[in-house]
């Protein structure tokens, strides 16, 4: 049981008197494995991401990371840092995922410093991180403006890795990238998982991407889980009509679009 790094139980989110956007969602992410949250807009997947990362609060339900309950907001600086060392976030939009006026090296050093690394030992660690995501020392001198979208997402991944977290939440982290660049970043993510054993909570709308990274899949619709299981099972032999519809709607070689009637 202790290989579960992220546990979400009966999560519910409702904004005021509005509709329930997350409705009794439960799933787990195991050490060194990837769980994908997949669904269309309004499925509640990003809200779940927000709650798991502590950026939003749940209406009810429980979130535990490495066995520690996260339902309430971190109070002390120490608690914040410990949580940061457990779970990290890579956001979607490469244009705004980094502070535009901060050099890449400084951004990474700032993240490394959180782990209490002494000033003198930071640079080697920063360079190591850059190498891990396929960037060179020259990139460290640049500001985000001089980097391509793919390079920026690599920096965001390196920044997330800086605290050596058990689990990284990737919120549509490759969705805004060109196909060839997306493939590069997916390769980097898979290689990192093999080397470091980091677990991913991968939020995406793209089933093809899910197939490449995930071990487990949670299919969401209107805030509810419609299907949940191993990736081969869910994508290979979907049990739910909606999962099947999603699959049928995803373009692939030889695909034809079908009207919903």
């Amino acid at each position, binding site marked *: 049981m202790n290989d579960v790094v992220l546990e979400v139980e009966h999560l519910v989110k409702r904004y005021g008197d509005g509709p329930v956007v997350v409705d009794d969602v439960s799933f787990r992410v195991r050490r060194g494995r990837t769980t994908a949250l997949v669904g269309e807009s309004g499925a509640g997947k990003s809200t779940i991401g927000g709650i798991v990362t502590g950026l939003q609060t749940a209406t009810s339900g429980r979130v535990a990371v490495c066995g520690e309950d996260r339902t309430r907001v971190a109070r002390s600086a120490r608690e914040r840092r410990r949580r940061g060392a457990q779970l990290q976030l890579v956001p979607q939009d490469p244009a705004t995922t980094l502070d535009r006026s901060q050099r890449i090296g400084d951004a990474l050093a700032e993240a490394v410093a959180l782990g209490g690394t002494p000033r003198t030992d930071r640079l080697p660690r920063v360079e190591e991180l850059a190498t891990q995501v396929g960037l060179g020392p020259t990139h460290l001198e640049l500001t985000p403006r001089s980097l391509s979208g793919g390079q920026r997402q690599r920096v965001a991944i390196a920044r997330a890795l800086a605290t050596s977290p058990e689990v990284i939440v990737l919120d549509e982290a490759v969705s805004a990238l*060109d196909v060839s660049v997306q493939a590069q970043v997916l390769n980097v993510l898979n290689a990192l998982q093999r080397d470091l054993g980091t677990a991913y909570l991968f939020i995406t709308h793209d089933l093809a991407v899910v197939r490449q990274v995930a071990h487990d899949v949670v299919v969401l619709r209107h805030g509810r889980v419609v299907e949940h299981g191993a990736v081969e099972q869910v994508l290979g032999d979907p049990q739910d009509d909606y999962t099947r519809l999603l699959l049928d709607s995803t373009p692939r070689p030889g695909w034809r679009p079908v009207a919903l009637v």
Partner: protein
Amino acid sequence: MTALLQVDDLTLDLGDTPILRGVSLAVRPGEALGIVGESGSGKSMTLRTVARLLPDSARTGGAVRVGDRDVLGLRGRELREHRRGLGMVFQDPRSAINPVHTVGAFLVERARDAGQDTAAAREQALTVLRRMGMTDPERRMRQHPFELSGGLLQRVMIASVLMERPRLLLADEPTTALDVTTQADVLALTDELRREMGAALVLVTHDLDLASAVCDRIAVMYGGRVLETAPAATLRDDAVHPYTRALLASRPPLDQRLTEIPVAPGSPVPAAQTGPGCPFVDRCPVALPICGSALPEERLVGASRVRCHRVEEVA
């Protein structure tokens, strides 16, 4: 048959920035052509040049003909008539449809402006909206754009274009902003209507599989140039140009997990960052020195028209 749209050796510069270099394309009446490329490839600007929706700083060379009109030289009334014969669908209907008027006012605006029967236009619009899969279109017509979802609004946009029965439909990533299930629905319905009407289509998209699904032929663009044009089926199974192959390979497959997705290093470049040769040269696994200095003319290889020095070896 003579081409409805003929683009010959088109170049485009915005100020000092090169955008397109020697783009040639042809679309026959009723035919669907997909233009596929990654960001910076120039695919959208090619479409905009055909519609003459270019900023003031644009300078063009070469020729674009639609029917018997030379599009690049058109002005005033003639330009308006040219545009009226086209139907253009943008990626984001929320910014493409004026937010302050009702959907109904938007749909009948053209008839009203031309002094035609607005009641007839309204009926026409309702018919097309229903065909586009919209339930209760009467109510939708009374609503404002912000009250409709992106999927519904794009149906409105497409209906507004199709109800005018254009000869040539131009679509710039029309379904990219939509959810996949909505995308499939909108694509299927639009495709059906278009074929019925016999309108030609130029579809700009980043998704090769999607383009293959609804287009007869596909042009692959990179760095402001067309590198390969081929029938959709040919491109899927027997792509020739190394870039097309790299693009096909890097699309993650849905049916199996790869340890490593085969992918060319680096990222796509816009025309401004390319030299005189092939724009793909820096990322190409089979590049020769000559590839950096000159891009060859189009050559017919099988059913594909390809611009590559290595066609013989690769094919």
